[in-house]
């Protein structure tokens, strides 16, 4: 059973906020005892998603949650915006792998860097991406 032990929210309105998200994620990852490579992967994923939220979502929020499942601990990051939304999610996920430009890489890349990945998006409503990395 997954429990949320701690939750912290950050606003993403300007590019300095992307840096702030990275630093906050790094702090939590270190506190959870993530190894260096795991830290790097989750912080990089958060940077990608925060940038997406800013550049394509018109700004939004990042929620950082510390999870506990049985004896495993993990970090969940949820990025939400009220932006234009993504019409074709499947395409957005695959584009990233080949094009290496724009939003595509951010989504596909973050998925590869995380253990769990979920995305909800509705054109005209907004987007919510959540990733989990376990220790």
């Amino acid at each position, binding site marked *: 059973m997954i429990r949320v032990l701690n939750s912290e929210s950050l606003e993403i309105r300007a590019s300095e906020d992307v840096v702030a998200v*990275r630093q906050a994620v790094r702090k939590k990852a270190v506190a959870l005892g993530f190894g260096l490579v795991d830290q790097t992967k989750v912080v990089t994923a958060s*940077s990608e998603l925060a940038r997406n939220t800013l550049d394509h979502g018109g700004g939004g929020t990042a929620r950082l949650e510390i999870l506990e499942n049985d004896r495993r601990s993990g970090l969940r990051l949820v990025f939400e915006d009220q932006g234009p939304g993504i019409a074709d999610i499947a395409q957005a996920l695959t584009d990233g792998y080949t094009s*290496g430009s724009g939003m595509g890489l951010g989504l596909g*890349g973050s998925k590869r860097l995380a253990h769990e990945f979920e995305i909800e998006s509705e054109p005209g409503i907004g987007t919510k991406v959540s990733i989990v990395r376990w220790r």
Partner: protein
Amino acid sequence: MERIPILKMGQYLLITIQVDMHDKLAFTLQNDLTEQIVLYKSKGILIDISALEIVDSFIGRMLGIIASMSRLLDAETVVVGMQPAVASTLVELGMSMKGIRTALNVEKGMEVLRSSLEEARHDGDSSSEF
């Protein structure tokens, strides 16, 4: 205004990235760099990222842009000092750093630039020097 310093080392330019880059800073860097390449007729650019613990697709793209711009201005770019965790993450991220030369450190980076200039000189034997 905040800007990344560019150091002139003979015919090479050395950029050491130590801070978290944001759009404005990246843009300023690209501008400053192109100016200086032309000003000093630099043949090689060394970008030291050994202090970067995170390299995301934004930074990756920036490095690619710098390499492409420099090539247009007849200068080779070598990115040096990538940290192991960063390298593993970039591979996982799927970021293709094609067209960007890399080296372990500044010293080796200069070696790479030197030998590629040597090659260029041999290739361009028949062309005249300015």
